[in-house]
């Protein structure tokens, strides 16, 4: 089991990461703010996947479906139906959660590779729907998504710097909520299911209900990330919800360290910066990203978070 001390370490790491992000925010130019917003949004998405994969042990290749539903719901309700944004964002999360309830009832019956495959199929089903739907522009996607409006308090989110700060704050809040969730008795049960499902069942724990709850929670946070992505790009397209987006999110989680919450947030920064720089150097940057993915899975061990932990332990030993 994870000890109390390790949990405190995670929160310290999160504070340091937030501090670095704030320093980066002060030093960033317009492009820097775009990247920072991208990182914050991916961090929320990756943390939501970590709740499911890292803590509950459910590996999903369809998590992008919920991200995409959040984005498409935001586009549909705001750009097509003209809802005010303060109502749109919670509704987008709710719709992601609702889809997760329906999909999850099927999915949590399966384990291992079958769970991976059914989530992939669920994701592709939503993708196929978006790809074909005329209302949402099909293949071309749908533009004209507004950003949430804080004009009343003098904040203009159309400004890249203010928007990136907004996404950063939301990411920090999501970390705060998720950290409390995984430290709660509920989160303990999820970790228990991950470590030994049959023992949890023998203890009388309704394992499927807990898995479904984790699935729905993770989906609603993914929906929040999707809603922010739609606002950031002012645009949604079926690409948001392809299964490769889910695969990339899993890689992000592994880069940072699976089941550490703060790790996947750091992994998001590594992923976005690497993709940004590589795509500036060569047209064939996906080749190098692919190599990086393979290397991360083969040699990444327990990710950045695990690496930092090991370095710290090595230092304490050296001092003695």
């Amino acid at each position, binding site marked *: 089991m994870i000890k109390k001390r390790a949990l405190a370490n995670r929160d310290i790491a999160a504070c340091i990461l937030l501090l670095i992000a704030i320093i980066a925010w002060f030093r960033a130019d317009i492009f820097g703010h775009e990247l920072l917003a991208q990182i914050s949004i991916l961090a929320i998405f990756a943390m939501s996947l970590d709740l499911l*994969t890292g803590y509950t042990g459910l*590996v999903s*290749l369809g998590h992008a479906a919920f991200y995409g539903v959040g984005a498409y719901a935001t586009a549909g309700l705001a750009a097509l139906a003209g809802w005010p944004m303060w109502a749109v964002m919670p509704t987008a999360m709710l719709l992601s959660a609702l889809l997760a309830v329906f999909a999850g009832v*099927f999915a949590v*019956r*399966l384990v*291992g*590779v*079958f769970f*991976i*495959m*059914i989530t*992939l*199929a*669920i994701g*592709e*089903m939503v993708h*196929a*729907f978006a*790809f*074909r739907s005329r209302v949402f522009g099909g293949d071309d996607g749908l533009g004209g998504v507004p950003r949430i409006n804080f004009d009343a308090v003098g904040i203009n989110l159309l400004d890249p710097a203010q928007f990136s700060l907004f996404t950063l704050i939301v990411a920090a809040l999501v970390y705060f909520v998720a950290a409390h969730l995984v430290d709660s008795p509920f989160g303990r049960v999820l970790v228990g299911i991950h470590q030994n499902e049959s023992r949890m069942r023998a203890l009388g724990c309704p394992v499927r209900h807990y898995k479904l709850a984790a699935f729905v929670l993770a989906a609603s946070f993914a929906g929040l990330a999707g809603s922010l992505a739609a606002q950031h790009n002012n645009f949604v397209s079926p690409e948001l919800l392809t*299964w*490769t987006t889910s*695969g990339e999110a*899993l*890689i992000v989680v*592994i880069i940072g360290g699976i089941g550490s919450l703060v790790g996947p947030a750091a992994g998001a920064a590594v992923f976005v910066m690497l993709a940004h720089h590589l795509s500036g150097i060569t047209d*064939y*940057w*996906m*080749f190098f*990203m*692919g*190599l*990086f*993915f*393979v290397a*991360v*899975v*083969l040699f990444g061990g327990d990710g950045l978070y695990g690496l930092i932990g090991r370095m710290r332990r090595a230092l304490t030993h050296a001092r003695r």
Partner: protein
Amino acid sequence: MFFEPTFLAIQFLNGLQLASLLFLLSVGLSVVYGLMNFINLAHGTLYMLGAYIGLTVARESGSFWLALVGAPLAIAALGALFHVLLLRRMQAASPMKQVLVTFGLIFIGLDVVRYIWGDFTHSIETPAIFSGSVQLLGEVYPSYRLFVIGLGLFVFVALYLGLERTRLGAVVRAGVDDREVAMSLGLNIELAFFIVFCLGCGLAGLAGVIAAPVLSVYPGMDMSILVLTLIVVVIGGPGSLKGAALGAFLIGMFETFGQVFMPALASVIIYALMAVVLLVRPGGLLPVRPG
């Protein structure tokens, strides 16, 4: 027009053609899963590479038949290399890590193809013998498509006989049935796995070559077929040759008739079919290990 028997018969043949392709793609994936619980997401990439290598061989030599033999051999060799370099190290890893390593390979394969062959769409010319059409129920039908169907059937029969009548086939069946017991009896499951894996890769390459004259050859052709292939494996029941054939038949038919009768819903129907199958029979329609 939709319910005319000739129209339905033509669509049925088109469905069989897709089923034939999907069978070639899924059978290797399925048996490898049965032996090692391993799913290779880069299987579609091998299909794409098979098509491209076949394209180059056919253009350089002017012979489709040389491409039909050469490209699968090249892909099988690539599979062997992949097994030695990567898979052997991954056997103790979690399903997630195995799946994600092959996920990385997808991107590598995609850019290798773009680098060598460019972003354009290519096509292999239909071989001369099959460039014509035949009269079927008063309709003309391209004879090449019948060749694709025939090849799929031939491979199915050959694999079936190989699995049922040869020693290697017996070892593979034993390995799929119960790996630990088979190994403790002294059967070389590792070697059987290696051979089956290379054979599966070669069949994916073969599928790429025979698809090239019908479907176009472009970077990303792997992604459009991969998900269908995975669904075939899951629906049929991983590890099962007959399951792969049945799954390929069902998906080929549902996809083809779905596109004709309700194009807007065709792809959704297939996923729904998979969900229903998994709910009713979580191990697939023809599971190797019941329960």
